[in-house]
Structures are given as C-alpha cells and as structure tokens.
C-alpha cells in the first residue's frame, strides 16, 4: 500500500507526470475570468468563491483520465489485479495520491487566487476549509469515473460527461460554504454537509470503483 502511494507520488513528481498541470490550469482559468466578465472589483468579489470552486473542480477533472489509463497502457493495472492487494485499497490509495498531487496544491493556491479576485477577507479561511474538505471527494468520485471508463478508447470526454453530474452535490455545498463565508454569514451548515458528503464518498466510492474496474477489465 505504502509502496503504491510512494510510486504514484514519485511518478507524478517526475518529468511528464503531470504535476503542476492542474495548478497551472487553475491559475490560467482564474486569470481568464476578469478578462471575460470585466475588471470591476465588486463583481469579482461577488463571484470569486464560485469561480474558484469551479476552477478547482475543472482542474481536478482535467487530470482524471491519467488516473488509471496510464497503468492500463503499460500493463501494471493487470499486474496489480494479480497482486495480493485488495483492489479497493489500491484504488483508494491511488485516489489519495491524486489528491496529494492535484487537490492539495489547488487548495493551497486558492487563497492567492482569491486575492486576485478580490475575495473578501473572511472568505479566505472558508474557501480554504471548503476546498480542503471537498477536493478529496472530487478525487474519489473521479476515481470511480476513471474506473468506469478505463477500458474505453478515447474515454476522456465520456469521463467528463459521467463525472461532472456526480460532482454537483460537492460543488453546491463547497461553493455555498465559500459564498456564505465571504459574505460574512454562518457557513457551518453547508460545511457540515460537505464534510458528511466527503466522508461518505471516501468510504464508499472505492468499493464502487473496484467493482466497475473488475467488470471493465474482465
């Protein structure tokens, strides 16, 4: 298990591993927002929490098709199936590695991008908290989507089509936390909802992902 985590982290950090791509995408999308809606501070302030959440979500989505496809290509996915690791655990670990290399950098970068988008001062903490709580859910749900489409040639677009609707609850609760927080309202209710959702998803989705992966590779 630990070996798998270390391998995936190491692979992500080496050249061609795609580390930082999500982050760069997040930065670029956020930068494009003022270009598309205009530079007025009041407008940016109002939409900042939502834009940052959407940007983080898309950046996460972008890297999903590498999650299992690379391992399928070089045959290591099949070898992992014959290894004495429970597949559920292996997929959970791979999702964790994905979160550490994609989700976590997004969480840490969000406050800086928040400054650029005039996010209100109290909003930063809530944004950080909501992203920290929500992005793990994005990674495991994405793992399910990746497992679902692993055997499909050019499944990248399909993966997005399948995963995006599944991201809706996370996005709603997560962005609601950031929105309420930056407006100075009480954000504890959506934060609890988000936490509950993430916990449930992290606990259950690896099983669903392993089930569909077994079906897809059979």
């Amino acid at each position: 298990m630990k070996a798998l985590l270390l391998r995936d982290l190491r692979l992500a950090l080496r050249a061609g591993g795609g580390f930082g791509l999500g982050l760069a995408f997040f930065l670029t999308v956020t930068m494009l927002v003022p270009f598309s809606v205009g530079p007025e501070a009041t407008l940016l302030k109002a939409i900042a929490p939502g834009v940052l959440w959407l940007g983080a979500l898309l950046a996460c989505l972008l890297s999903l098709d590498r999650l299992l496809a690379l391992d399928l290509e070089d045959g290591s996915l099949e070898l992992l199936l014959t290894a004495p690791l429970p597949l559920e655990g292996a997929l959970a670990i791979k999702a964790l590695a994905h979160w550490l290399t994609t989700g976590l950098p997004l969480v840490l970068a969000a406050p800086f991008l928040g400054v650029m988008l005039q996010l209100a001062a109290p909003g930063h903490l809530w944004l950080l908290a909501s992203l920290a709580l929500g992005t793990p859910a994005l990674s495991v749900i994405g793992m399910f989507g990746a497992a679902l489409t692993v055997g499909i040639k050019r499944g990248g677009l399909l993966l997005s089509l399948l995963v995006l609707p599944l991201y809706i609850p996370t996005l709603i609760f997560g962005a609601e936390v950031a929105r309420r927080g930056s407006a100075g309202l009480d954000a504890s209710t959506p934060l609890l909802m988000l936490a509950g959702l993430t916990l449930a998803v992290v606990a259950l989705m690896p099983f669903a992902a392993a089930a569909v992966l077994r079906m897809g590779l059979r």
Partner: protein
Amino acid sequence: MSLWQYANPVKFLALSERVQPVLWALAAVFVSVGLLWGFFGTPDDARQGSTVKIIYLHVPAALMAINAWFMMLVASLIWLIRRHHVSALAAKAAAPVGLVMTLIALVTGAIWGQPMWGTWWAWDPRLTSFLILFLFYLGYIALWQAVEDPDTAADLTSVLCLVGSVFAVLSRYAVQFWNQGLHQGTSIPVATGNRSVADVFFYPLVLAMIGFGLLFLALVVYRTGTEIRLRRTAALRARMNRGA
C-alpha cells in the same frame, strides 16, 4: 410457472409480440383522449388562462421522466443480482424514452414558465433537478454506446445507474438547500384527495398520465425486443463465423 420465465429473451420476444398490439392501441387511445379532452374540453384557468392546457403534457412527461429512471434502477438491480439479459436490455431501451420525457418536461415547463413567471428559465430546485436528471440520462446512454462488449456495458451502466441514483437524490437535496424556488408544489397528491387541481382539469390529466405510462411501456417493450434481436443476430453471426 414463474414470472422469471420471461427473463428468457426468446420467450420475451414471443410474449412481446402478443401484448404489443394491445399496448400500442391502449396507449394511443389514452394519450389522444387525454390530450384532446384536455385541449378542447377544459376551460381556461382564471389566473393562468389557456396556458393551463400545458399541464396535460408537462405533468405526465415529468412523471414518466422520473419513473423511467426508477424503472432503469430496478432493472439494473435485477441484472446485477439475477443476471437476466432482458432486464439489462430493458434498462437500455428505457433510457432514451426517459431522456425524451425529461426533455418534454423541460421544454413545456420553459414555455409555461415564460408567461407565468416572466422567464423561460429559473434556477428553481425543480427545474434544476430535471436538468440534472437530463445529464444523468445523457451519461448513461453515452456509456452504453461507448462500451463494446454488451455484457460489460450492461454491468457498467447498471452500476452507473445505481451510483447515479444516489447522487441524483443527493443533488436534489443539495439543490433544495441551495435555492428555495418558485415552482408550485406537486399538483396531484394522489394519496390524500385534497388536490389543488379542480375536477375539470383532473380527469383528462389522469387519462394523459395513464396514456404516457402506457406509451412508455409500449416503447420499452418494443425497444427491448429490438435490443434482443440485435443481440441474437450478433450471437448467431459469431457462431456461424466460428463454424466456417
């Protein structure tokens, strides 16, 4: 004799040939009587004017949009547990029907909403939920088309339907939390009797709902038959090629 015998594709084909004429005829009668009665034989609403006539399309379509997904969920479970091919193919057959029903509900809703609420579209929880349902239908259908091996496709789409159902309920809840909307409550609380629709509107509406249900059934039975024939064709071809 158990009901499960019709889980055999060939037996199902034989049965479907027998019930289909009746189903289509009943569906045609109920849909046309419901819609014609509704369109020609009911008065305008005091407040909504003639737009109330849209209800005979909007409500039955919305009802079937949800029921179709529910039927797909049950069929997916039957496939995953008992591995009856007819069940998986029926779920596949129902999805496009559900998609069209959702589309009708959305479009008629938008056309109705324009004069009543002054806008084609509002991010009202109910409208939003139907839009989400529409996305789920799209994803489900796309997955069926993308997977080459038919049994694998059935497996994967079944799990997607299951997981999707959970997320659809979560989304519904999240959307309600996110925006309390302007859509009126359900018009027909069947169980309680104190309905918000007057009798003149109610009877044609019930006919239309039964009609849409029958139409859905007829379409699904027919489409399931089509899917079975396609699988049978492929199975026979595979064997002929092997024998050659």
